[in-house]
């Protein structure tokens, strides 16, 4: 790594393993430590600035107007009353340009545009702009829209027979290997069951918000976005301007969980209004609009078939999933994505088909696929263990594959069984009683287990790191921190490799004027963005060694000093007018040569009230492996968050679609029930040591989603163990339990 001059680019494509990591040989000793977030003091004191909070002059307030029919054509939009109201500036629409629905994550094209033909109830069709928020909101109620109503498909059950195969994408929708039907007929033990999960909403605490301002033909949009680099391209295409005329700023994002991967309707509405008015326009979705017009996780119907021999070795795995989405939208919830590689079994059938419905867009929500797919797979595994009469952990052990059972490639690293065994020991698995037998007063107790798995992904990502004349490092990338801890782990990687105290690293995120980063999604953020920072710092080490006049491997960087050749020199003295380098990581052949995934094991204890059917989660433990843990504190928090999403998924979260028009009935946080503090016990998280040299130079794998994968399944299995009642229709609400509970 010699010969880097100022402004060099250090690029790496992961075609081969990367066995050595500077994070193992550096001396600063900050990597992996449970350090407090560097952006923490700002967040706890209200000084972190989110999209709607930039103090621009002369901001006009936008309020979005929604369609109130399920489908139909807008025949008239009468804004005369609204326009005449005090404080109202204008009522603006542009039927062709407004976004019908948000874009999916990472796409570089515009989302589906055009709102005159209403595609779903709640579609955003206009924006009222006024001098105050209150004036805009009230005027929006006075916009009179007339529709020629259309014929819609609003019921999943009524249209499930019309399911169609999605067009082939990154994830193949269908996979067939061997003959599942014959293997099922010949199997000693079989399970053939159907699990269903409802539509869900990410419900990030910060509603989608855009503050748009045009200057000299260029747009700056302060937005709540997870992936600014591709969001910028989506926005430019939607507006018909070149990408160099669009800048997105997302320095702080109040949660995303998939719902802010692609641009949403408020962005284009704000941009169009700001251009027409010649002044900044702020458009923040009301919470109800977030529920109506952003993105949901699709409902699923999953037929799960397992066939096993007398010893419980799987001979057949069938996982056939039906999901729903709008016409023209190819995204499907890949519920079978982990089923491809989690267990052994020669005959396999994993399919996904889409039922076309006139419901709001379906797209990514935390761990698209595994989050609900592992409910079915891990539930069925639990059912099979019960049927055979062996321990569910032992059943998983007997089906542990030596290599990817479909692609026949090795796992880059895999510690599923150690996670299960460690968890069993820590949780007291040996004390598990037969189903329905542990009654304490009015409560039935039970414990359950489920495997966790989430594919690891690397995305192209770039970052610039510079060292200024004071010896401080500055990291610049349009990568985001949506609560994931990016600010902190990028500072730790930089501090570790450049030998700096953490406070001497300043991280700038979420501005598309900086090099394009991977964005936050798919659990790839830390591995991808972190690797780009690693590579930039690696190049800087070369520059520092050159300035010091020593070989790079003969040099130690620590506490802001360069130590080599019996000399210890402050870094600030060596950098001259400053040093900088850009790092760029890209996925390569390692993705095809190895199956890469993070793993874990969930253990849950629930209590079920025999009188009311109320379910309480009493204890929960997650044991995970995800390669190198970059910050033990923020990593644990990511898993706590995922596990809690699992609690919501298992017990309370369900979007209800009105079968008459597709309208989301429970469109607020009072009716869509995300877990609150009292629903969540003091969860436990443990990480097992691991390194993955095939993933990236950090040896780290994804962590943001593995915590939800399998979590709901463990609760479902615990609920069965408590009651002896197997409910396969999620969420597991009390009405579905009551009939099977013992007489009071």
């Amino acid at each position: 790594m010699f010969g880097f001059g100022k402004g060099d680019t250090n690029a790496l494509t992961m075609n081969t393993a990367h066995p050595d990591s500077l994070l193992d040989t550096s001396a600063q000793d900050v990597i992996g430590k449970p350090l407090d977030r560097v952006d923490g003091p700002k967040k706890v004191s209200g000084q972190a600035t989110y999209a709607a909070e930039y103090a621009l002059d002369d901001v006009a307030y936008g309020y979005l107007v929604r369609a109130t029919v399920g489908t139909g054509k807008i025949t008239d939009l009468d804004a005369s009353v609204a326009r005449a109201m005090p404080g109202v500036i204008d009522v603006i629409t542009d039927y062709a340009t407004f976004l019908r629905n948000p874009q999916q994550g990472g796409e570089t094209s515009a989302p589906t545009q055009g709102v005159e033909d209403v595609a779903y109830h709640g579609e955003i069709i206009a924006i009222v702009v006024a001098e105050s928020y209150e004036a805009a909101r009230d005027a929006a109620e006075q916009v009179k829209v007339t529709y020629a109503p259309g014929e819609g498909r609003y019921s999943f059950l009524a249209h499930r027979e019309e399911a169609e195969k999605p067009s082939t994408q990154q994830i193949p929708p269908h996979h067939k290997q061997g003959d599942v039907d014959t293997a099922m007929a010949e199997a000693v033990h079989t399970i053939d069951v159907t699990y269903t999960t409802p539509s869900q909403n990410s419900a990030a605490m910060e509603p989608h918000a855009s503050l748009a301002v045009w200057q000299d033909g260029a747009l700056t949009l302060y937005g709540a976005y997870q992936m600014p680099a591709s969001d910028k391209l989506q926005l430019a295409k939607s507006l018909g301007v070149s990408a160099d005329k669009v800048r997105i700023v997302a320095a702080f994002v109040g949660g995303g969980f998939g719902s802010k991967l692609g641009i949403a309707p408020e962005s284009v509405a704000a941009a169009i209004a700001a251009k027409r008015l010649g002044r900044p326009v702020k458009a923040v979705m009301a919470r109800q609009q977030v529920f109506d017009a952003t993105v949901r996780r699709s409902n699923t119907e999953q037929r799960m078939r397992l066939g096993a021999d007398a010893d419980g070795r799987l001979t057949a795995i069938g996982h056939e999933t039906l999901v729903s989405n709008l016409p023209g939208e190819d995204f499907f919830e890949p519920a079978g994505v982990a089923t491809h590689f989690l267990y052994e079994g020669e005959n396999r059938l994993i399919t996904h088909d889409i039922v076309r419905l006139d419901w709001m867009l379906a797209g990514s929500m935390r761990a698209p696929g595994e989050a609900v797919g592992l409910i079915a797979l891990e539930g069925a595994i639990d059912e099979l263990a019960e049927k055979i009469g062996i321990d569910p952990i032992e059943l998983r052990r007997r089906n542990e594959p030596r290599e990817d059972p479909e692609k026949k490639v090795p796992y880059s690293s895999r510690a599923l069984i150690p996670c299960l065994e460690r968890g069993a020991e820590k949780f007291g698995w040996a004390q598990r009683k037969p189903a329905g037998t542990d009654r304490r007063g009015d409560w039935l107790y039970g414990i359950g287990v489920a495997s966790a798995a989430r594919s690891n992904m690397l995305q192209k990502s770039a970052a610039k790191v510079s060292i200024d004349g004071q010896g401080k490092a500055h990291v610049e990338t349009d990568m985001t921190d949506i609560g994931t801890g990016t600010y902190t782990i990028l500072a730790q990687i930089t501090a570790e490799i450049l030998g700096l105290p953490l406070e001497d690293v300043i991280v700038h995120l979420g501005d598309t004027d900086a090099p394009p980063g991977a964005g936050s999604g798919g659990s790839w953020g830390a591995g991808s963005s972190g690797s780009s920072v690693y590579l930039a710092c690696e190049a800087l080490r070369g520059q520092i060694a050159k300035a010091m006049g020593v070989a790079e491997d003969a040099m130690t960087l620590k506490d802001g000093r360069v130590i080599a050749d019996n000399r210890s020199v402050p870094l600030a003295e060596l950098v001259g007018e400053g040093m900088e380098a850009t790092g760029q990581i890209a996925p390569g052949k390692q993705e095809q040569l190895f199956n890469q995934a993070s793993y874990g094991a969930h253990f849950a204890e629930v209590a079920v009230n025999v009188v009311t059917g109320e379910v309480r989660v009493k204890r929960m433990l997650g044991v995970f492996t995800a390669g190198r843990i970059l910050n033990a504190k923020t990593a644990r928090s990511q898993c706590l968050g995922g596990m809690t999403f699992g609690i919501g998924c298992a017990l309370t979260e369900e979007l209800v679609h009105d079968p008459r028009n597709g309208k989301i009935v429970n469109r607020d946080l009072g009716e869509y029930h995300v877990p609150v503090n009292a629903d969540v016990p003091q969860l436990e998280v443990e990480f097992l040591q691991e390194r993955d040299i095939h993933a990236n130079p950090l040896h780290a794998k994804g962590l943001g989603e593995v915590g939800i994968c399998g979590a709901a399944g463990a609760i479902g299995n615990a609920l069965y163990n408590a009651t002896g009642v197997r409910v396969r229709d999620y969420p597991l609400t009390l009405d579905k339990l009551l009939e099977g509970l013992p007489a009071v």
Partner: protein
Amino acid sequence: MHFTINGQSYQAEPDIRTSLLDLCREHLGLTGSKKGCDHGQCGACTMLVNGRRINSCLSLAVMHQDDEIVTIEGLGTPEDLHPLQSAFVRHDGYQCGYCTPGQICSAVGMLDEVRKGWPSHVTGDLDAPRFNDDEISERMSGNICRCAAYPNIVDAIREVAEADGTVDIALRQTVEAGA
């Protein structure tokens, strides 16, 4: 109208429709308090008014002439954090940070309610309230955290309650009640 916010005097003539939350966020430059739902369902907007925690999105600004209002900005600054603020940092009692100002303001108000001996839904004996993790979780359940830092929030609040005497006061009340 006159408002006292974080010990400072503000003059404003709010629209009668303006919530206390929007007065602060949109008119006074105090954007620390967050809007998550505008319906009193999430708690992100929690402020202290005359010492009591309220959902400021459900309260009209015009109702607060001369009230003593404290927002997150009034509790501490990055350089000089309130004990609850620094406990939230230490225990990672947040992730995205959007619900955090409301959580912290709510915790300040909640601990005061405990010191006054107010019971909660999970208090077994109303004459002898105890203070424990279940009480913290229950009393903080008006503040949603979708990142789900709940266990860390409980740890942070418990640590402060032990340090600032709240736990001792609660214990004394329990003993005095003869439990």
